[in-house]
């Protein structure tokens, strides 16, 4: 067994929405705390019962220690409020407070600060970065914002970095003596296309863009710098990625593509957690001699379910064998929803511990 978490580890849990990333992150955190480590789990939007279990329901500022009697280490939880954090990043880092206020009121900024543009990801990474640099914890685990596609997380910092590049903002700088924003664009080709854009969108829109780019100048360098630092942290040896996915033939196929992409990009993907593989009662039956023989309708129904999950398991074997050469694969059942909260986290911790675990 290879320990995914040890002193000094940074773990980033990625995956699409609805796969149970938050519970898995908490489970891994608990597992590490049980081995004696001081762990921080940074999470976004946990379910109510989980938030209560982690002591995050009252929206606390900063980190809260989870009350775990009998556990050797410490488990701490922190809530990532992306929108508020992005705003405070702007305020803290802006060279000029007036510019910061102007930016925060800009209509286009409001589009940017929603979850479409990668600002949520940027902010979570900024919070992760600060937690790691603070050195208060042995292990920091980040539960990332739900993405349309697991890959989106990795392109987000790049997207936000692109936005704050000087090459674009300089087109719109106000303090330049030039009359038109176009004459500042050095490249003739760029000039032509900007004119085309102005033609289809109108000068008002271009004006709004100019204002937007003008007001982000104050935090441009800070964002660029932080993006670079965060990238370095993400690609460092101590940062491990854990991919959480649901048990769906098509999604599992996607994972194999993602794995290749991430390795090529220089990230260390070390674990794959396939969540909600089968209802918790099925595993035992699958490993037993097969479906029970039944005559009535309910038995038939149960057998149909068993056959389905058995087929899926067999299909999955193919990918599992392939992936296992590169990563640790953990399959988790769909746990009884009545469990909820900490009990569910504990159940997951036990299963994770058996497969990848932690080293105290």
């Amino acid at each position: 067994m290879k320990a995914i978490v040890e002193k000094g580890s940074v773990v980033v849990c990625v995956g699409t929405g609805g796969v149970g990333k938050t519970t898995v992150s908490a489970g891994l955190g608990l597992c590490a705390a049980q081995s004696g480590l001081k762990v921080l789990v940074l999470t976004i939007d946990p379910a109510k019962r989980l938030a209560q279990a982690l002591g995050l329901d009252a929206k606390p500022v900063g980190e809260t220690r989870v009350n775990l009697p009998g556990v050797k280490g410490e488990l701490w939880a922190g809530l990532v409020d992306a929108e508020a954090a992005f705003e405070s990043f702007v305020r803290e880092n802006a060279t000029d407070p007036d510019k910061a206020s102007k930016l925060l009121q800009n209509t286009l900024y409001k589009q940017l600060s929603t979850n479409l543009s990668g600002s949520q990801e940027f902010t979570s990474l900024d919070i992760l970065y600060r937690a790691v640099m603070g050195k208060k914890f042995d292990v920091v685990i980040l539960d990332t914002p739900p993405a349309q596609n697991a890959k989106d997380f990795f392109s987000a910092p790049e997207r936000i970095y692109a936005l704050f590049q000087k090459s674009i903002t300089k087109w719109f700088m106000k303090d330049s003596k030039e009359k038109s924003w176009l004459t500042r664009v050095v490249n003739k080709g760029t000039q032509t296309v900007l004119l085309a854009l102005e033609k289809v969108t109108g000068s008002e829109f271009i004006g709004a863009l100019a204002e937007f780019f003008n007001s982000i100048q104050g935090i441009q360098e800070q964002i660029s710098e932080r993006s670079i630092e965060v990238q370095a942290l993400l690609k460092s040896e101590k940062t491990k990625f854990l991919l959480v996915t649901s048990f769906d033939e098509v999604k599992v196929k996607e994972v194999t593509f993602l794995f290749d992409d991430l390795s090529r990009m220089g990230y260390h993907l070390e674990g794959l957690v396939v969540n909600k593989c089968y209802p918790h009662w099925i595993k035992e039956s699958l490993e037993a001699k097969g479906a029970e023989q039944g005559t009535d309708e309910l038995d038939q129904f149960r057998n149909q379910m068993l056959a389905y999950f058995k087929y899926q398991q067999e299909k999955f074997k193919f990918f599992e064998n392939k992936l296992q050469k590169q990563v640790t694969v953990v399959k988790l059942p769909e746990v009884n929803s009545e469990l909820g909260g900490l009990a569910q986290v504990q159940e997951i911790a036990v299963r994770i511990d058996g497969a990848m675990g932690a080293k105290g």
Partner: protein
Amino acid sequence: MKKNHIIPSIYLVTGKGGVGKSTVASALAKKKVAEGEKVLLVELGDTSYNRLVFEKEIGYQPVSIEKNLDAALWNGESCLKEFISYFIRLSRVVDLFFENKIMKTFVQAAPAIKELAVLGKLTSSNRSYGPPMDYTSIVVDCFSTGHFMSLMRVPRGISEAIRMGPMGVQSRNINNVLKDKRMCKVIVVCLAEDLPLQETVELSTALKSEFDQTPLVIGNKILKVPITEGGLDNLIKQDPNNESLKYFSDRIQKQKEAAIRFKKLGYVYKELSQDFSKRAIERVNSMAQEMESI
């Protein structure tokens, strides 16, 4: 410019991650084909999920899945490119637009442009603006709840900020199509579980207040256990440690609660059953059949 625009019905399918949006969108598209419509099934983003379901490469240009059903994958950049090429009929400029590295970064980075390009493309036939498409129904497999609302809010946000000029006018028109119940319908896919349920209620409330849209709520993956509740209770009494029976009872309870909750809120709520067909495409087909009956 205003030639041969068929006004299509637009169906926006959303829901929390993992609820089966893509399957519902594909099944709905097939159902519409069965009703005699000519349908385009659209995915948003850079990676197609349907390519693995239909076993066919899916890109920006529609590809045929079956008779009267095409599929496409739209992202902001490709929608914008088509739009620009339609209005600036100089291929030199268009090529420059997308070969120019700084421009690429700019399109990627500048807020609102990509979102407007996608929604502009989607509503182009309804607004008789832009390149015509000849579909009678467009089914969009949209982003999950949070991202979906952000996307929907872009046109209004922009039209409020920029009142004049083409951008202001087009944004306002796009927003009007999104608010028009005759042209645009929202379907929220949900599971009978706490989190998806909560998100569905929040989303529906926001859609009602901001777009005057009352979505159709689909309860997906409903486990149709072939036994009465009383019968199940009796079995559990006889065999209290049977995990599968407890699981069935738990699911039935949650499904009932979901239906009651949505009914109380006055939503149109339809259930689709969890299907245990082995392949994804089989699950799409059987869902399309089940839809016909509801």
